[in-house]
């Protein structure tokens, strides 16, 4: 399941090939592994320098697990992850830690990942310290710069995380990720917990920083409006697999996979202009422990044929930047 654009001149910054992450389910008298959650089951995509690629899909489809597997926060079951020609899954634990300088992550809840007993200045200095990117003498100055870059006052360095609003804490999380001058930042639901007015501020900030530092983002979100705003390309996942990858325009204006179509039509739009036709899917998302055979979407798909129940669809190219895993369309 290699996804390759025919003539790509640019080289990918990150390549993910047939990535699998199975979580064992223990059971029985001896706590043996009785089954697996196939959270990510053969996911492949590329990310080019300076672009934003988003992963969308419903809860439990494997978005976060994909991000975590790339960073090896969990050890993937199988597959290959290449970052700047380095095989990440083959690196020793220590070498992988050093890679964190280039690969950073921002989570949904910044509060949970900020030590409440440290001042913001200390939190940022620690980030600089661990990867030893800035000499000790220059660190306080660098902390000030970082705060200003994310739109906070330099004086805030002396305050503690609880003294900030949710949006401001997310800015601190971003400053910490930026501290080590990374190349790629994985944003896992980084704006999902924020109110819309503050969410807009943070999205603007992320875009500004991207332009400034030529950052590359892997943006994980279930909010398609946000995804459309921030992305260059979008990956749609369903039950651990990629169903469609396309540039933003193709995906939103000309979605191909029946699941993508259903997902897009289900979003309630904050506008009374266009009353689009609703395509309401029946039933729930099946369990990743015992996923449906063939195409995993066949149990809910309005177009499913007998073949869909048995044959896993190939990923086909349907446009210059447009790939879809469905045999029917």
């Amino acid at each position, binding site marked *: 399941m290699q996804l390759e654009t025919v003539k790509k001149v640019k080289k990918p910054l990150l390549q993910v090939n047939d990535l699998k992450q199975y979580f064992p389910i223990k059971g029985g008298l001896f706590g043996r592994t009785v089954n697996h959650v196939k959270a990510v089951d053969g996911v492949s995509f590329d990310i080019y320098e300076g672009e934003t690629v988003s992963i969308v899909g*419903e*809860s439990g489809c494997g978005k976060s697990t994909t991000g975590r597997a790339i960073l090896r926060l969990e050890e993937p079951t199988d597959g290959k992850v290449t970052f700047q020609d380095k095989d990440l899954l083959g690196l020793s634990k220590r070498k992988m830690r050093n890679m964190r300088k280039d690969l950073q992550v921002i989570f949904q809840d910044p509060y949970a990942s900020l030590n409440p007993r440290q001042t913001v200045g200390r939190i940022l200095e620690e980030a600089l310290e661990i990867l030893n990117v800035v000499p000790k003498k220059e660190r306080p100055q660098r902390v000030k710069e970082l705060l200003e870059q*994310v*739109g*906070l*006052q330099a004086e*805030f360095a002396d*305050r503690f995380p*609880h*003294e*900030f*609003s*949710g*949006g*401001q804490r997310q*800015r601190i999380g971003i400053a910490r990720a930026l501290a080590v001058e990374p190349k790629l930042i994985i944003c896992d639901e980084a704006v999902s917990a924020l*109110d*819309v*007015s*503050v*969410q*807009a*501020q943070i*999205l*603007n*900030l992320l*875009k*500004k920083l991207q332009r400034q530092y030529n950052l590359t983002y892997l943006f994980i979100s*279930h909010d*398609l*409006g*946000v995804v*459309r*705003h*921030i992305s260059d390309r979008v990956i749609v996942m369903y039950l651990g697999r990629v169903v469609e990858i396309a540039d933003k325009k193709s995906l*939103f204006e000309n979605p191909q996979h029946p699941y993508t179509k*259903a*997902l*897009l*039509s*289900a*979003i*309630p*739009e*904050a*506008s*009374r*202009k*266009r009353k689009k036709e*609703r395509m*309401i*899917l029946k*039933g*729930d*998302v099946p369990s990743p422990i015992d996923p449906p055979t063939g195409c995993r979407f066949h149990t809910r798909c309005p177009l499913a044929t007998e073949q869909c129940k048995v044959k896993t669809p190939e990923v086909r190219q349907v446009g210059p930047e447009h790939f879809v895993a469905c045999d029917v369309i």
Partner: protein
Amino acid sequence: MNKQDQDVLVVKNLKTHFFTEDKVTKAVDGVDFKVKRGETLGIVGESGCGKSMTSLSIMRLVPSPPGKIVDGEILFKGENLLDKSEEEMRKVRGNEISMIFQEPMTSLNPVYTVGEQIAEAIRIHQNAGKKEAWNKAVDMLKLVGMPSPEKRAKQEPHELSGGMRQRVMIAIALACNPELLIADEPTTALDVTIQAQILDLLKKLQNELGTAIVMITHDLGVVAETCDKVAVMYAGKVVEYTDVDSLFENPKHPYTEGLLNSIPKLDEDVEELQAIRGSVPSPSDLPKGCLFAPRCPYARELCHQSLPDLTEMDGEIKVRCWMHTEEWKREDTPITNDKDQTDSDKGVTLYAAGNS
């Protein structure tokens, strides 16, 4: 039937405050709206603006102490619920007014089957026998679109998915055919494809049963899909009460306008979103004039000095903003929040939240 009778619920100047050690939190501090039979009213606003406390006030379920309804009227079919005894309120709750919460797991009993829980609601409110109530419970599950209702009725909540649990909650809430249903973020915890199913279901049931619905949400998309009227709340107050078309096409309050501009649109490309600068003030430390003045791009001196009333405009639209008053025409002080500062990045530096 005259106009008055059609208003199932009229809330006037509702104020619910929390009294803790050294401070008063004005969680709800001037809420006005009405809901007609068969109509859906949306209450929207950002986290902490008082949406849930408004709905708990209507149900008279505000945790007390520290909370207390200190002012206002809640007229349900013309009678003020604030005058009722606890005994009388118990009859109203779950009978004439029902409520659905965001997280169904917290309001379902984990050790009873969902069928038993729906049947229980039917038995209490309709004086039905055991067998009859069970059969009705299964019928209700069918009505809310539960797959294999007979089988599901015998399962416990944890055996169901989030969407199915929310269907059970709706079945319980509608079991006694209430005249008013209050739904507090009923789909926020659900995936969009499941949300679409649930919103569709609520609309269908409303058409069949004529229920009035108060839909609490922070999602303006949900408002556009489901509501007829909308009350926009900011820091405990209703700042705009309007019909849903006017809300999206001609928002009157600068906060409503700001909210709409903040949302990334699905059919429009912009490089930068027009964010509202700063953040919501802490409800225990509110500015003295218009609560939105520190963030408002139109604010003048008057706005910082005194609080505007919720004023009726054309039709049923009401707005709490000086711009739409006579006083504004005489106001000649300059705009206080200069344009540069509305830049999202600079804006936020002006405020440190809360208890610093």
